[in-house]
């Protein structure tokens, strides 16, 4: 039996009168890359924000690495957050800090007694692995969209998380850079043994990076399975149009 690192049951979340998640069930297994697809505003990002305690569910359960997120106290939640890496849609680099300071920020506040040399080695090693060793002293404003995404991923990897959450990793990027980001996502899993959830509406990214797909429609997962199981022969019109738009129209 494969080990579950995330187990979601009957998760519900609404904002005012708008019901976003209506009883979501989902599992993430150790070492797998799970892609969550859905229209804009379908609640994909809400789902992973609940996972790291940025939002609270209205009902249902969300077990991450064996812990029910909504029941954790601040200290316990922070301990869990150290085991989860969150790559934001817009990278969310701290724009008043250099790349080095961006990467130092979570490291020095969470891991004590590191020498300056150790910190520099760790940062340089990660920048090497995302292919941007030269940008260590640059400001985020001097980086391209793709470079920001890479640095954002490197910053989350500095705490060596067990689970990676990617929120729209290829949004707003050109096809070549998208390909590079997809390669990076796969490389992260291999090098750091992470389990990942990739939130996207880019089917190329999904096909390239995901072991399993989960399509979120009307607040619930409509189809879950491998790419071949979910898409090419989809009977649901909405899933079919998703596939057609990505692989025929574009």
């Amino acid at each position: 039996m494969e080990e579950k690192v995330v187990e979601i049951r009957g998760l519900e979340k609404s904002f005012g009168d708008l019901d976003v998640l209506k009883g979501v069930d989902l599992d993430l297994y150790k070492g797998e890359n799970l892609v969550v697809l859905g229209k804009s505003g379908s609640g994909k990002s809400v789902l992973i924000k609940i996972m790291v305690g940025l939002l609270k569910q209205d009902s249902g359960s969300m077990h991450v690495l064996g812990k029910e997120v909504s029941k954790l106290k601040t200290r316990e939640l922070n301990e869990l957050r150290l085991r989860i890496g969150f790559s934001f849609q817009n990278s969310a680099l701290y724009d008043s800090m250099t790349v080095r300071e961006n990467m130092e920020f979570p490291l020095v506040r969470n891991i004590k007694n590191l020498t300056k040399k150790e910190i520099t080695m760790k940062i340089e090693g990660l920048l090497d692995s995302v292919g941007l060793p030269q940008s260590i002293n640059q400001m985020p404003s001097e980086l391209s969209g793709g470079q920001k995404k890479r640095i954002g991923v490197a910053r989350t990897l500095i705490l060596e998380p067990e689970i990676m959450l990617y929120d729209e990793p290829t949004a707003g990027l050109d096809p070549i850079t998208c390909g590079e980001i997809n390669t990076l996502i796969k490389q992260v899993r291999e090098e750091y043994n992470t389990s990942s959830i990739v939130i996207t509406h880019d089917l190329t990214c999904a096909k390239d990076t995901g072991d399993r797909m989960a399509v979120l429609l009307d607040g619930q997962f409509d189809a879950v399975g491998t790419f071949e199981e979910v898409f090419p022969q989809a009977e649901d019109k909405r899933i079919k149009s998703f596939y057609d738009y990505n692989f025929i129209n574009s």
Partner: protein
Amino acid sequence: MTEKAEDRKPLLSKKIDKFFTGLADAWNFVRRFFKEVFVPPYEFKEIIHQCYRIGVESLPLISLTGFIVGIVFTNQSRPSLSEFGATSWLPSLISIAVVRAMGPLVTALIAAGKVGSSIGAEIGSMKVTEQIDAMEVSATNPFNFLVVTRVIATTLMIPMLVMYTDFVALMGSFLSVSANEKVSLVTFFVQVFESISFLDIISSVLKSILFGFTIGIVGCYKGYNSSKGTEGVGRAANAAVVMAMFLIFIEELLVLQIVNAIRAF
């Protein structure tokens, strides 16, 4: 947590509910500051950085404004005093006005415009670009790093800026007095120090601490609770200035009443 007042269901009419939930949120924000200010980690490096930004980088504007205020107030007061042949009282009059009210008020209003708006816009922009969420998910405390440091910095630096403004305004005043009444620097400052009391200085410093705290906490609160993208950032910056200025005047009024009561006692 990113859940805000508008996510809750209204109990009374929407506007009244919004007002009271906003008030409760603001109160909780202030309470959270006093709770977290004593909790490690202490971000000394960031506090010093903010002190530099708020204090040193405000000096040119404060210097110019203070100097002009000193000259203008002296020149405006001279005709009235000269009617009674009392222009020799100018240093006393100016020193009392500057130390008791104008120095703290002018400095606080300028700082509310320059510092308050910058804090509101900076934190607001961090909020809408998810930088605050990024801090939170990396198990660091964004409130401690962003809010506590900035509020401490404004609370420390505004009193220093006020003392500096007082000095610069008095120098401006001296320039005008010496040009018209031929008074030496020593005579001018002897008259200044004879006119102001210990209570004036203490109340001015305490008031400035209050103003500094207000500018910092309002700027941070507005920025921390901004929403709706770039429009929200602009609104946060604007609201930070307007709210801080409004509160500064209210506080000035309250402190004046208290000091007058102490003086009468």
